């Protein structure tokens, strides 16, 4: 008897929490259902969607964009946007070209590239935005123009072949039938999920995005949180850049450009608010899956490639519009 009462109490205390939490979970469940229904509905008509290898190629292709979108989620959550992730992705290709040219070992090349990306995010974007209080749009717009320009300087304006066994394995290898980029994306997702949902830092990201001044007065290191988010975002773009070089087998002066907006579309479709403080990594994953499934269905059923951007734009407006309308009811 006593046992039941004591065990019932904490459960009762946690009950309202569970009920309220289910709002987000329900919304994401609904979104997941939409993606699954779209996929299953199209399956009987499109033979490619029934082919395992085709689907694995698709997953591997979009793994890099997913990683960028996950990093971008941190920046958007704390209020901001990193315009330069696509440029960073391409820029890392140029670094790989340089370092491989110096005959450095693959491990050193990878570490140097990631360190450079992290340093740019943390100490250039992060410091200018958080400490020098410059507008995030201006700071990352500058990187958006500077990084591709440096890349062209390094590559002398044309695409250069790059071969590195490690990068080839990362981008094109398989483990137990699963492509390595997919595994890397899963690993990044797991690490970032723990960081955002189980650490004090993650809670502080939400707090800073919700009300920066209130978070500061409550004792949160708001500047450090902002810097870390830009660091994480740039680091993710660096990982995506390594995958891209490996996939292309070359460093290309226009590589990566445009991916920043594709990734942002996924983030926003996934329910992360541009005004900050609200959103999840799972939502970002779902947002990207939705875009990929949708564009695959359209392309495979014969819609000309040129229309895909228009469809994605309209989908974004409709999804965010529905979200707004639901909130106002």
């Amino acid at each position: 008897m006593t046992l039941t009462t004591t065990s019932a109490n904490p459960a009762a205390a946690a009950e309202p929490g569970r009920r309220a939490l289910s709002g987000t979970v329900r919304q994401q469940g609904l979104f997941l259902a939409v993606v699954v229904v779209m996929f299953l509905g199209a399956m009987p008509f499109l033979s490619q969607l029934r082919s395992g290898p085709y689907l694995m190629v698709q997953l591997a292709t979009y793994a890099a964009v997913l990683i960028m979108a996950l990093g971008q989620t941190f920046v958007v959550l704390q209020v901001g946007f990193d315009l330069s992730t696509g440029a960073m992705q391409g820029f890392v290709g140029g670094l790989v070209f340089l370092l491989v040219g110096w005959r450095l070992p693959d491990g050193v090349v990878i570490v140097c590239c990631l360190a450079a990306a992290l340093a740019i995010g943390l100490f250039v974007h992060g410091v200018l935005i958080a400490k020098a209080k410059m507008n995030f749009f201006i700071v990352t717009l500058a990187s958006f123009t500077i990084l591709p320009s440096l890349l062209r300087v390094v590559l002398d304006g044309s695409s250069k072949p790059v071969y590195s066994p490690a990068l080839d394995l990362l981008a094109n290898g398989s483990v137990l039938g699963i492509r390595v980029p997919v595994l890397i994306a899963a690993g990044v997702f797991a690490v970032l999920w723990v960081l955002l949902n189980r650490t004090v830092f993650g809670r502080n990201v939400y707090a800073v995005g919700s009300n920066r001044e209130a978070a500061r007065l409550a004792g949160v290191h708001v500047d450090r949180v902002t810097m870390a988010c830009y660091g994480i975002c740039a680091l993710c773009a660096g990982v995506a850049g390594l995958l891209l070089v490996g996939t292309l087998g070359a460093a290309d002066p226009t590589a990566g450009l445009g991916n920043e907006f594709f990734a942002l579309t996924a983030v926003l479709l996934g329910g992360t608010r541009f005004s900050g403080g609200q959103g999840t990594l799972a939502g970002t994953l779902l947002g990207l899956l939705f875009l990929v499934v949708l564009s695959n269905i359209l392309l495979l059923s014969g819609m000309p490639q040129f229309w895909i951007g228009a469809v994605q734009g309209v989908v974004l407006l409709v999804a965010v519009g529905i979200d707004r309308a639901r909130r106002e009811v």
Partner: protein
Amino acid sequence: MHQAKGSDPAVVVRGVTMTYGATVALDDVDLTIRRGVVTAVVGANGSGKTTLLRVVCGVVHPTSGTVAGPGRALVKGLAAAQRAGIVLVPQEPTVAGHLPVWQNIALGRPEARRGPFLADRAARAYAARHLAGLLPDSVLNVPTATLSKSARQLVQLAAAMARHPEVLMLDEPTAVLDENGVEMLHALIRRFVGAGGTVAIVSHRLRDVLELADDVVVLRNGKVSHTGAVGPGTEQHVVQLLSAAERPDQARHRPDLGHVVLEARGLRGWRGLAVDHLVAHSGEIVGVAGQSGSGRSRLASVLAGAWPAAAGEVTVEGRPLRLGDIRSAQTAGVAYIPEDRQQTGILANLPVSANLLVGRDDAGVRWGPFRRRAAERAASTALIERFEVRPAEPERPAALLSGGNQQKLVVGRALARGARLVVADEPTQGVDASARAAIHAALAEAAAAGSAVVAVCSEFDELFEISDRVVVLRDGRIVLDRPVGDVTQDEVLAASLGSDVEESQS
């Protein structure tokens, strides 16, 4: 068509129900606001006062029921309400901060344009006419954001009057006003009603509002529990109606003054802050008064480490703080309850539990960089109980709580750390009587437990209710510092205005 004053209804509310999800904010409310009189709407936190005002002004659509404005025209939506002459002045000043004061007042007025072109000279004159009696003309060209909150609220009031309302709806108009501003407001209301206008006021200052009001409406849990004319016995009657929701007065008992906890020397800083010496002892509540702009909030933010000072020294328990470094202050045991909870207190879209725990990194709820989620749940449930946050749902977004309950979150967050020094800036701004009592009790409890408390209070009733010692600031300087027993309200007012007499220096 227009009948004698008071007989013709200005607003008729019929069967209005308003639900937000499962929460019933208004429950089948019937109400008539008479024309040409002042109606006070009173009630506890979350009783639906603000919702009622928002429904009448067309800001939100009721779930069911109707609202009719002057002349019995149905009010549906903001535009219809404005055509009917119903104008809302919300609790928090919402003005365009970058624009000068005159533009805020003339914004959207036909007087401010000539065809498609601007008529700035006329607009400015128009604004000056409506600002007269509230603020000096000299502020007309000042960017509105640079004014104090009290002054911004007066600008908002002038902007409302500039719309030539028939019915003026005021939501907690005195919450952010200082004593001067309150007088201006009352004078304005009397002028407006004298000229045939209708006013509805939501307020927690029962005595003030009943002094002005002809009618009173008492709301409880979304229902009208009393309406009627204000008479001699009304105040007592209303208090009885509300008191069921209130807590009994906590006995005020604190140990004798202990050692010095806070000592500030030679503080110099923004806007002429010049505090030479201020101390607060263990177990003592020091009330800081002053007109708005006197530096009282600046002093609080400097003591809490939220703002830097140009010079000076602050020690807590003998440990010097790094001025302007809030982490250093918190490590030394300073808790800060900032003014203006919307701007600097509440994480609106985060749940109650996150609001209570943000910034905490003690071992109770943390394990290295990781969160201890079971401990977090237990801690937030305990804080919700201790500060009586309602509804008691840890996962409810803070934005959906009433103002008083939001303030309890800010207070609970600060006091949960067991601080040595509590710096509270207007801790009960815009909260109702029961939340106010709960917050006062929490401050008294902190003092009884040996903390020193420095509380900025612009309301004299509150100042004298909670303080052991009163400090008055004027132009950044301490002009009065005495135990509460040796000072009267008139002396505090006189010292803060610098109007007369012997200034007993600290």
